[in-house]
């Protein structure tokens, strides 16, 4: 009984794949034939649309419509039954927990972006001259492949805290105690717990920044650096006046990518502290409103705020991209 149902499921999955991809191919094939019948002038104008329409439709159905729906819900009450105007937004910008979340998020943005980009850049430039470059880079890149949740689990052990007198199982506290200090409540001390969480994200993102920046640094022609040396520039001047400007577009891409990631961060907070003890960020707050408190209105309002916060970053990225295209 169980067996047959499994086989049936497998068959339906396979047929879905075959009919799904086959259907797409057939769709393009037929569209292509139809377009080829058209006069050649119209053809070149219509052809791109024929190929793009399915993708645009899918994008519209799964991305644009939900976004619009979220925006609408954000102006409605808890159950999405009546209009409440800007109430949800008013809540988002005045509620104490929300304000803490905003403050924390700004802290996250500045520290994670600033530190992982500058550390990544520093390592990329220094590694360029190191003999065991591939090995060293692999080690630094490694955290990148760990999921946020996985990384959080690892760091729970780093930060684990036992009251004084009991053996410390957390690495950091074990070190602290062996050096004669009191164990530190990394995740409960409100002065440092946010920084403890931010450290995890930096650990995760530095490798990403380093890999991209390192390939940009390697892309600078050796001649250009040597020409600067002949022009009597010091290594420091070469770094600031040649290296940085030449890799500036990569720097921007890396920074904006990390900014977007940080804006979305919630898993680390969720796993480590559950957002307690003043460690809430906007995204974790959104999850709470949405799924713990079942307040769809507020949850959606926070989602819209996050969306708006990402837009300037995206605009900067696209601008830069267009500039690059124009310069080619």
């Amino acid at each position: 009984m169980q067996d047959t149902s499994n086989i049936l499921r497998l068959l339906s999955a396979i047929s879905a794949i075959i009919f799904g991809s086959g259907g797409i191919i057939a769709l393009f094939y037929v569209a292509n034939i139809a377009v080829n019948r058209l006069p050649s002038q119209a053809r070149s104008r219509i052809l791109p649309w024929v190929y793009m329409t399915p993708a645009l439709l899918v994008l519209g159905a799964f991305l644009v419509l939900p976004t619009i729906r979220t925006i609408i819900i954000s102006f409605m009450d808890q159950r999405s039954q009546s209009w409440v105007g800007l109430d949800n937004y008013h809540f988002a910008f005045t509620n104490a927990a929300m304000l803490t979340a905003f403050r924390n998020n700004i802290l996250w943005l500045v520290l994670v972006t600033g530190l992982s980009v500058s550390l990544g850049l520093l390592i990329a430039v220094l590694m360029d001259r190191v003999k065991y470059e591939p090995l060293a880079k692999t080690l630094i890149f490694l955290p990148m492949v760990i999921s946020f949740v996985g990384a959080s689990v690892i760091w729970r052990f780093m930060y684990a805290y036992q009251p004084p007198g009991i053996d410390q199982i957390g690495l950091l506290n074990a070190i602290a105690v062996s050096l004669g200090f009191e164990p530190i409540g990394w995740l409960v001390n409100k002065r440092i717990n946010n920084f403890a969480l931010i450290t995890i994200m930096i650990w995760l993102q530095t490798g990403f920044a380093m890999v991209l920046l390192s390939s940009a640094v390697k892309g600078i022609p050796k001649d250009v650096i040597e020409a600067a040396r002949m022009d009597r520039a010091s290594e420091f001047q070469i770094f600031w006046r040649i290296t940085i400007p030449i890799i500036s577009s990569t720097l921007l891409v890396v920074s904006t990518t990390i900014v977007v990631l940080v804006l979305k961060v919630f898993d680390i907070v969720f796993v480590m502290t559950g957002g307690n003890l003043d460690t809430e960020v906007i995204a974790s707050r959104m999850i709470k409103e949405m799924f713990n408190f079942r307040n769809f209105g507020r949850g959606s309002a926070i989602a819209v705020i996050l969306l708006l916060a990402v837009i300037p970053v995206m605009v900067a990225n696209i601008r830069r991209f267009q500039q690059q295209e124009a310069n080619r």
Partner: protein
Amino acid sequence: MAHIVFEQVTKSYDNGFVAVKDLNLDIGDDEFLVLVGPSGCGKTTSLRMLAGLESISSGNLYIDGQRVNDKSPRERDIAMVFQSYALYPHMSIFENMAFSLQLQGTPKADIRQRVQAAATQLGIEELLDRKPKQLSGGQRQRVAVGRAIVRDPSAFLMDEPLSNLDAKLRVQARAELSKLHKKLCTTFIYVTHDQVEAMTMGSRIAVMNQGILQQVDTPQNLYEHPNNVFVAGFIGSPAMNFFKATLHPEGDALFIKAGALRVPIPAAARSRYQSYVGTPIIFGIRPENIYTPEYAPPGINPFSIEATVSVVEMMGHEIIVYLTLADGHEFLARVDPRSRLTPGEAIRVNLDLNRFHLFDPSSTHVLA
């Protein structure tokens, strides 16, 4: 205005490859020294050691009497024009040229004036606001030179700066660089593997092969008195013809015998070669010292030989003809364009016996 001395300078790379071996070279104050040689002979390596971009494995390098082996490029006051031009891609042409002055803290007005002057001299004033990638190859080459001259360095190093230009532009740039040298009166060290560039620009030429300096001399002397087979074959185009030969005495006379060829040594030179009788030698004669009898100029010392025409290359102002001796040995002649030559035809040509060279095949040195 730098006096540069290489003393037994050797470069061996990390992989153990010796790129330059025991280089001794004394470059005068306002000399235009050209470094030539085939690809991979160590020209760039020598230049980079002088620039300070490559460490010196052994030997000494002096600039104006001061040992500079351990000095960084910034302490050497030398400018370099790279083969790729290596312009700073993110800076305008003005900024490219002003960069070194800015680093020195030169006043702004001063920088503007010096960059402007250099740009005027090179004819690139209207390009100052552009970015390097908006320039053509020839324009980039000028900017690279301009970036070097605004600094007013004590020596200029140039690594094949014209190799990316088309033939016409190259001729023009060659003349401009020569003019620039006369005007600046500074030491120029110029790397090329183009012997026309070497001959036309250099006040002296250093010929290198496989990391070893072969000969340093004026273009004229290098052409007329090559030290060894390599220099003889490298300078001059088409290359000198070589024949494996021996010296035979016959009565009073001395003959060079090379297969079907039997060439008498002129009386005046006889005593010089007397001691080499019986030993193997290499007989060399340049294609331009072989004439068709009708158009042989007066004043040569003609010796007529027979050969078969195999290929005729009409160049307009001259004919390059491939000739074959009775024993199958092939050689080239550069003859008057009016000569009538048909492939397959047997003809007589005149060798100018005032201008032949004899070398020792084991050492490849010229016979003294």
